[in-house]
């Protein structure tokens, strides 16, 4: 069935296809270049049976195909990955969680080693791809990295300094957060959990959770609150992108860029603290309410903060992208061509840097974005340069977006309270909702399923990193291993957002 972003559907209204029909219809929907899978998971139904839910978003028609099939644990399921490579992480997740058999999957390995897995074995026993040759050697990195960063294991196969192959093994960060959404019963606990899915994307994930929760309750946030949430999301984008430019400069040993972008990030995250008391925006986004109304004083403060930030930022960025010593490190490094990006299903910033116009703000807009004529930044070269430029250009875009949003916000007048706040979880029973937002990294997708009592039965999260980690692994092929850090930083993917 065709749905839109944040549309609540009764489980009883969803047609249960045979797996063959499910497979054929998924292939058919994915045949369009503008279509991609945004969520695909299994839900236990009874002892040995599972419901498969697959969401395929079409960015041109702006609708989302929801397919559902009921399968038995012992069924032999033809792998969708064999037809569309971008499905690979989803089938791997279903396989390790419930030991369902996917036939013809080229890479049916554990994805994140959840504690309640039924397949996949031990995390220290991952079946790495190997090449047997006296001319090649392997390099293992992690799970603990040299910097202050989350853990993940990288296994390179190199010929001298050149990377032939990289395989990335994740799961070290697994905290069982999807289960906790169901186990924790207080609304405030669930909202807090959503802020801790990925600590660098607090607003992005909390907005997705909030939209899903409010949709399930049939509660619509007033326009002024929608506008405020959009301002927060764009401010988060500016702050993280600025920090990323600093880190990219670090990895090409450009100390001035590292220091200047690093200190420019400080007023951007401090602005969030002025708004809500947390530099990362924790506690700002809450379902059915807000504790921190965006006042005129905050609007003026933002304008002053940006007036001080912008000239320094522009001056530094122009110098960075003009320096031969920086450009020689980032141009034609870590390239993901457009066709490859589409094949593996890149999303968000990395996808847009490789020529894929994928941005939920325009393809499946929600809240305040429904009324905005936003044109995403799309670049073609797919290298580290493009991903760095993407930050620069998106920061300028987001500043303009916030300017427009503040005009809209002012027109709606000063607000002091929400008319009909709620503090408890209330939701339509036996229903399912998909909620997508565009965080700074890319498409964030939450799916909430309720049971007969109206409480959560399952909560599924897809961070953009799930789609993009393979992009990093392929980007570094035939590059020098010394360029790995700069490639890694240019994607800046989340470990905890992937491992959940």
């Amino acid at each position, binding site marked *: 069935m065709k749905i839109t972003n944040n549309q609540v559907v009764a489980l009883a209204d969803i047609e249960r296809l045979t797996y063959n029909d499910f497979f054929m219809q998924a292939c058919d929907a994915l045949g369009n270049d503008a279509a991609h899978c945004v969520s695909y998971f299994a839900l236990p139904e009874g002892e040995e049976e599972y419901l498969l839910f697959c969401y395929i978003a079409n960015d041109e028609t702006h609708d989302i195909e929801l397919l559902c099939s009921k399968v038995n644990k012992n069924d032999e399921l033809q792998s969708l990955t064999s037809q569309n490579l971008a499905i690979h992480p989803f089938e791997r997740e279903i396989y390790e969680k419930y030991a369902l058999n996917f036939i013809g999957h080229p890479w049916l390995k554990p994805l994140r*080693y959840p*504690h*309640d897995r039924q397949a996949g074995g031990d*995390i220290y026993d991952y079946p790495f791809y190997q090449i047997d040759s006296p001319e090649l050697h392997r390099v293992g990195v992690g*799970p*603990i990295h*040299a*910097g*202050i*960063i*989350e*853990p993940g294991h990288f296994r390179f196969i190199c010929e001298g300094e050149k990377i032939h192959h990289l395989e990335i093994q994740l*799961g*070290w*960060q*697994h*905290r*069982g*957060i999807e*289960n*906790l959404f169901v186990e*924790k019963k*207080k609304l*405030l*606990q669930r*909202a*807090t*959990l959503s802020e*801790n*899915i*990925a*600590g*660098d994307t*607090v607003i992005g994930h909390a907005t997705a959770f909030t939209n899903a929760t409010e949709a399930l309750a049939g509660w619509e946030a007033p326009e002024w609150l929608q506008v405020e949430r959009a301002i927060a999301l764009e401010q988060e984008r500016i702050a993280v992108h600025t*920090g990323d430019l600093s880190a990219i400069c670090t990895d090409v040993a450009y100390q*001035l860029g590292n*220091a*200047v972008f*690093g*200190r420019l990030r*400080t007023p951007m995250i*401090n602005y969030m*603290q*002025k708004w*809500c*008391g*947390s*530099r*990362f925006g*924790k*506690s700002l986004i809450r379902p059915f309410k807000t*504790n921190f109304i965006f006042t005129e004083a905050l609007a003026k403060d933002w304008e002053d903060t940006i007036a001080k930030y912008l000239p*320094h930022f522009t*001056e*530094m960025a122009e*110098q960075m992208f003009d320096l031969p010593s920086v450009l020689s490190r980032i141009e034609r490094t870590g390239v993901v061509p457009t066709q490859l990006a589409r094949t593996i299903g890149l999303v968000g910033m990395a996808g847009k840097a490789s020529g894929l116009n994928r941005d939920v703000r325009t393809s499946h807009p929600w809240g305040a974005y429904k009324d905005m004529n936003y044109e995403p930044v799309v670049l073609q070269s797919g290298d580290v340069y493009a991903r760095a430029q993407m930050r620069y250009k998106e920061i300028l875009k987001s500043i303009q977006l916030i300017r427009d949003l503040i005009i809209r916000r002012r027109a709606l007048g000063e607000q002091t309270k929400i008319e009909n706040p709620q503090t408890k979880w209330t939701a339509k029973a036996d229903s399912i909702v998909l909620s997508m937002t565009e965080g700074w990294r890319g498409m964030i997708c939450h799916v909430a399923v309720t049971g007969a009592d109206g409480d959560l039965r399952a909560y599924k999260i897809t961070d953009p990193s799930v789609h993009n980690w393979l992009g990093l692994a392929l980007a570094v092929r035939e590059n020098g291993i010394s360029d790995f850090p700069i490639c890694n930083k240019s994607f800046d993917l*989340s*470990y*905890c957002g992937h*491992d959940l």
Partner: protein
Amino acid sequence: MLETLKIWWHQGKQWIPDVETTEVPGIFRGRPIIKAGVAVDEAMLLDLCPMDAIQTNPLAIDLGKCSFCGECAFACPDKIQFTKDFKLSHNLREGLVIKEGVDTPIRVDADKVRKEIRKTFGRSLKLRQVSAGGDGSCELELNATGNVNFDVGRFGIDFVASPRHADGIVLTGPLSENMAESFLDAYNAVPDPKVLILAGTDAISGGLFADSEAVKRSVLNDLHVDLYVPGNPVHPLTFVNGVLGLLGKMKH
């Protein structure tokens, strides 16, 4: 070259001269004060707190569990207030429990600091950070301690790449089971004497993940914790002042 010098000149002074007395901007939620003599519905507060950080008899907030969301202060503004005091670290777990009627600064209990800590690391402390289920925000704030604003290097405190180069471990995250073995490997690779610092609510108590089946906090049972740094995430100034307190280098 001229462009570079121009940019350098335009930055002015960005460093915070005194990390102990500086004021953080905005409405930072730091050390709370629970006023004595103000009646409050304690059952409501217990039910409200998402982190189970509120205790009764006497009424208290455990900063090792608190997410600093401020909901309790919104519900009972006359009873609970969060001040902008960012010095929250303590070397004893019970030192993080702020009781009703108490409005005194939180400081490391110098008598309980092992003698070799200040003697060995007083002038130089190199730390290895291990994230085990951290959500990335504490890690970003620990990174920020080294930027030009906070510049923790000026105190001889640095983060290094290998546990073999380190004097201690800074743990973030609730300690995911999948990372438990690697965390212990890193801890054991640090030569003695060594310090262990738990940074952030998740590391100190497990936070919302404390009873998740995917974490394995029992590996901490046999280890001596030298410093607890509350926050969700920890503020760089909370971390810097905590370590300065541990080393006995606070001026005020």
